[in-house]
């Protein structure tokens, strides 16, 4: 074949067409910024640590090609109950945060999506407004608000909410809100709420309101119509918002550091310690890999739903 012919064939082939290029971009992105780093972390997690750097996985000596994979870190994670407890705690706090974000975010998004179209941009702006100040500052501010004589703390005490919280076991003592599961989940809910609201709002805003009229016409009260029509139709938004909150919450480090307490040890903190206190990179990487796997499972479920929803829409 002449070089000319090869070129034309290449040009005609799907590989070079604009279409596949456009589709390819996200894949390249994922490959470069997720899969490759993940593989590196995976590699480190099974490497042996020498004083300063890791041993190569593949060694060649005396005509012997040797592949060394050290799984002892994973064994350790599986055997030491501390890790199990911390993973469980991380999942628990992330799940609680997701639940509260959903409980607060759904009505919020709902009324935002049903508000007059002229004021919707303003409402949306208000949701985004907190992003204009540093996240660190906003979380730090809660220390003051919930600490001794913070006005939120005083208000909660005055309302006797602390009795309820103590009964639930999420604060250490009456009148003490800081450094507890309560302050941790509150801080995370506050921080991640916009990530729940935005996808939910996008979903609810594009809902066909005639479906609600159809439901009313068929005898559904507004309450029934909400549960039988609006909520099922916003499933994709609920899942998207929940993932956007749940996934970063599992690995959250800063908020537990600032607002959490001794009993709210989360996996982010463990990672930090392994990396920077113990300097045990293979161990840290193993912890990270297990965490990613814990997150990927719900993500896969989410993807499946998305694909289904996509199919339903087309």
């Amino acid at each position, binding site marked *: 074949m002449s070089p000319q012919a090869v070129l034309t064939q290449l040009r005609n082939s799907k590989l070079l067409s604009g279409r596949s290029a456009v589709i390819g971009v996200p894949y390249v992105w994922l490959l470069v910024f997720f899969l490759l780093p993940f593989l590196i972390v995976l590699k480190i997690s099974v490497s042996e640590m020498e004083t300063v750097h890791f041993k190569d996985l593949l060694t060649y000596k005396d005509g012997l090609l040797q592949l060394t994979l050290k799984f002892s870190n994973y064994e350790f994670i599986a055997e030491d109950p501390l890790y199990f407890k911390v993973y469980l705690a991380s999942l628990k706090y992330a799940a609680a945060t997701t639940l509260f974000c959903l409980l607060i975010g759904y009505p919020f998004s709902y009324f935002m999506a049903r508000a007059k179209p002229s004021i919707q941009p303003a409402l949306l702006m208000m949701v985004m407004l907190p992003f204009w100040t540093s996240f660190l500052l906003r979380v730090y501010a809660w220390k003051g608000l919930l600490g001794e004589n913070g006005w939120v703390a005083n208000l909660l005490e005055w309302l006797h909410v602390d009795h309820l919280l103590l009964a639930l076991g999420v604060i250490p003592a009456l009148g003490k809100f800081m450094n507890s599961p309560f302050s941790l989940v509150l801080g995370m809910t506050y921080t991640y709420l916009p990530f729940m609201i935005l996808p939910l709002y996008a979903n609810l805003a594009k809902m066909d309101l*005639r479906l609600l009229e*159809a439901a*009313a016409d*068929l005898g559904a009260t507004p309450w*029934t119509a909400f549960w039988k029509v609006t909520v099922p139709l916003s*499933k994709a938004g609920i899942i998207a918002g929940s993932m956007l909150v749940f996934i970063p919450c599992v690995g959250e480090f800063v908020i537990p550091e600032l607002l959490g307490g001794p009993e709210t040890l989360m996996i982010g903190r463990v990672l930090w310690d392994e990396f920077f206190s113990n300097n045990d990179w293979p161990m840290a990487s193993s912890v990270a890999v297990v965490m990613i796997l814990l997150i990927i499972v719900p993500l896969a479920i989410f993807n499946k739903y998305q694909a289904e929803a996509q199919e*339903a829409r087309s």
Partner: protein
Amino acid sequence: MVASQAPAFLQIKDVVKDFSGVKAVNHVSIDIAKGEIFALLGSSGCGKTTLLRMLAGFSSPTSGKIILNGQDLEGLPPYLRPINMMFQSYALFPHLSVEENIAFGLKRDGMPKDQIAERVEKMLKLVQLGKYAKRKPHQLSGGQQQRVALARSLAKRPQLLLLDEPLGALDKKLREETQIELVNIIEQVGVTVVMVTHDQEEAMTMASRIAIMSEGNILQIGAPSEIYETPANRFVADFIGNVNLMDGTLIDDNPDHVIVECADCKHYVGHGITGTEGMAVSVAVRPEKIHVTREKPDGEYNHVRGTIKDMVYFGSHTVYHIQLGSGLVFKISESNVSRHRDDPLTWGDEVWASWTPLSQVVLTQ
């Protein structure tokens, strides 16, 4: 008119809907009998949907009353009205299967499960969609979706069925097939229907009575033939079918006939009208009631002379456009009863168009 013995099944009494100063529905009063298929016909934006939505309960009249089977519907929310609507866009629930869509209303009534299943099956059979019960709406064709929407609105056996442009989303051929099918289904169920359409053929084929609406007002209510043959005014005559309208003056007013002088001819109309000599009137003649000849017809009335400007062959009939002396273009539709005309007419021919004294309608407004 004789005062009706029993009040009508559905009474729309002097209903007004005001949208910030614009009267989308303007003092509309209609009585509809039980079992009737009633069509609201009018051009886009005349207030048909607005009126229908007030019947369904999605909006309330600014003034006036709607009474169904003796019950005033004022203040009754849509979910408490014994009325179901088939939406223009179908509004099928995308997350529910065909049978779940049909069962939706029945479940809201708290009907026992086995009865729901039985009713759903019956409805599916009625609209011939038994095979598609488990499918989602997006897996159906437009025509099938329309039948699901119909089944869903009939499932609760409503006292009144509202159809908003029921066949609007279908193409012309499918629409014509479905019109008859729809009427058959409605008659099987025996429900009273108010339908909205801007397609006059649809209204003519489906409805037992039609109301012509324009800018929120009802211009005429009557059976399809009544509206076609004796339109109440120029708007209705022009709106329904094709018509030749000639302006003229009433020069002779007798109880059994009148004579109207127009620019192109004198009309002898074989029935009396309520009017006075000298008043300006319009005469309407439908194209299919006109006959074309080369020779001048006898007498001095009911014929015009012109040249053929245009002719279109439609198979069953041919439409001629004839330019008259006054500049008016006359539309004539001649049915092709035999395969060949003895003296084929063609472009530019001088011809006479004539009609009988009972084929015109004199319109005073």
